């Protein structure tokens, strides 16, 4: 017991070095834990961009490509699928719900999604959260548009505003659908997913802005159809880009996927979003591992700092060790004393690091969600984190053996000789 108390008093006597060492350990520990949490937050956010959707269906092509343009609004489809197939699948006995997606237009860099009211009813993200409205309502008419939260915020749009969509999805769209302006009728609540960065219109709206186009080119002046001439019921949907579907029972997913992939009427492809998301994440996990390695080395550097601090103190403490020896303290106790010191430093540093991490998370949580769409939940320490901490402590004990052995040797060599 007195050994621990001696270790503590000795550290307190060198408080400047002690505090600096503890701080450096706590910074590195909080960085390590924080990065680990942000990483898992990013992963969870990624994996939860879409949830409860059993299959995504589109024209045959790359699986990752299909996932990217339907879920992340990145890239575009090479081919469409027929609305007829969509309807057939909707009526499939195993299918509980479907959402059609018609893509290809944009507004000032934000993608436009043509869909129907199923989207607002069935789309889920983050373990089953539904889409809700911040303002307004669902679009019921051809020239009505609902905005994702980021779109409304970044462009400063409100319900009632009139906006013009553009053809194509490049940042600088070539053709505006300026003859057929849309009215904002709603703004969605923030989801911290790509949902926020899109505009939503009806399938009919999507069809309507292109109905007078000929072979992918805008109509000439005299070929134009004026918006007021178009009636919702007159429009016939022929094609969509992709669809999402949920099954009645998850057991049927694989069979359904196989059936769709073998669909006879047109070449279709179905993907299980969770599987492709995991594939995609694996593809970018080298960045994740890189981050891990960096934060691991931050901890190593923090602990090496401690090693240096303790090692440096050894010479001026030889005298103290000789005194302790004369009082009946064994060389092995001197060894233990040095280990205790490292243990104190690491434990206090780690505790402080945990506190620091929580403080940073509390402050940083809203910012991270705002700017990166990464939601880092503030929860207790996980078993894995505690295991990391145990590993850090173990590693620091391992390092502490170096100065401890040195002190032990000095002590044996010095005996009762007081070196100054």
């Amino acid at each position, binding site marked *: 017991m007195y050994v621990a108390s001696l270790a503590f*008093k000795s550290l307190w006597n060198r408080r400047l070095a002690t505090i600096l060492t503890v701080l450096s350990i706590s910074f590195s520990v909080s960085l390590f834990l924080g990065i680990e949490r942000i990483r898992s937050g990013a992963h969870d956010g990624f994996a939860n961009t879409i949830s409860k959707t059993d299959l995504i269906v589109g024209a045959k092509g790359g699986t990752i490509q299909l996932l990217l343009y339907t879920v992340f609004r990145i890239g575009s489809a090479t081919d469409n699928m027929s609305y007829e197939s969509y309807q057939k699948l909707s009526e499939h006995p195993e299918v509980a719900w479907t959402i059609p997606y018609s893509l290809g237009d944009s507004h000032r860099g934000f993608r436009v999604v043509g869909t129907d009211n199923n989207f607002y009813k069935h789309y889920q993200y983050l373990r089953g959260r539904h889409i809700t409205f911040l303002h307004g309502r669902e679009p019921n008419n051809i020239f009505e548009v609902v905005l994702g939260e980021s779109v409304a915020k970044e462009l400063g749009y409100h319900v009632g505003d009139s906006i013009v969509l553009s053809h194509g999805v490049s940042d600088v769209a070539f053709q505006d659908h300026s003859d057929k302006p849309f009215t904002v009728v709603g703004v969605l609540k923030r989801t911290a997913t790509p949902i926020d960065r899109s505009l939503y219109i009806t399938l009919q709206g999507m069809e309507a802005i292109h109905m007078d186009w000929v072979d992918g080119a805008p109509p000439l002046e005299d070929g134009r159809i004026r918006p007021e001439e178009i009636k919702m019921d007159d429009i016939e949907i022929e094609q969509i880009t992709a669809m999402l579907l949920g099954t009645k029972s998850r057991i049927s997913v694989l069979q359904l996927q196989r059936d769709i992939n073998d669909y006879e009427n047109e070449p279709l492809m179905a993907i299980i979003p969770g599987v492709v998301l995991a594939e995609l994440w694996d593809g970018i996990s080298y960045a994740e591992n890189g981050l891990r390695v960096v934060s691991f080395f931050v901890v190593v550097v923090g602990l090496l700092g401690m090693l240096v601090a303790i090692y440096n103190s050894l010479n001026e403490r030889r005298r103290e060790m000789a005194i302790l020896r*004369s009082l*009946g303290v064994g060389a092995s106790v001197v060894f233990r004393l040095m280990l205790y010191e490292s243990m104190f430093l690491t434990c206090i540093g780690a505790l402080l690091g945990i506190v620091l991490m929580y403080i940073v998370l509390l402050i940083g949580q809203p910012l991270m969600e705002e700017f990166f769409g990464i939601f880092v939940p503030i929860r207790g320490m996980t078993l894995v984190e505690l295991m990391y901490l145990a590993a850090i402590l173990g590693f620091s004990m391992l390092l502490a053996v170096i100065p401890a052995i040195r002190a032990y040797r000095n002590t044996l060599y010095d005996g009762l000789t007081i070196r100054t």
Partner: protein
Amino acid sequence: MSDVVLALNEVKFSYQNSTLLIDIPEFKVKAGERLFLYGPSGCGKTTLLGLISGILEANSGEISVLDRSYAKMSSRSRDSFRGDTLGYIFQMFNLIPYLTVRENIALPCQISRQRRQRAGNLNSTIDALAQRLGISDLLGRIVTELSVGQQQRVAAARALIGDPAIIIADEPTSALDWDHRETFLKLLFEELDRYGGTLIFVSHDQSLKAMFPKVISLVELNNAVGEASCT
């Protein structure tokens, strides 16, 4: 138990890869004795004390303290035996810098259970001891604020607490001026008288010889041919 508290028999010692430094055929100290062991610098006084306190191991021969032979003890039990039976005073820098004066004095009783038991109520024992040694005012102080004379008295208090059978003093007065040396020794003697402790006092300075009933020259005791200055 005989009245011999320390006995050396045919003890030989040399540091690793070094010539024989200690060769003592016979050396005995009786209980309650106050022994002045004289020897010039570099003759192996501190080395001998290291052997007596069980920190160094003799190459051959036998060392026993209170009838217990070190040769038969593990280094670990020698350590705790030392804590129980010996009080050690160094030439200077005796104190642990990060402990208060009181904590320094109390330290042996934390390390040795025997000394703790013999000390009785630790706080009042320290108070009384400090009173007699004239360091009562210093008990709450930080060690580094003390003068050398004050430090040596605190060191004496720490060596004496819990009544160890033998007090070993390795030139404890050489950092003090003359007046202080005498009072320091007198206080030490008084305390030893109180519980019948034995003193082995080592110095290269013969001026204190007169105060001791028994004086031994290490050069005569030690057969090893040491450094030029020793012969």
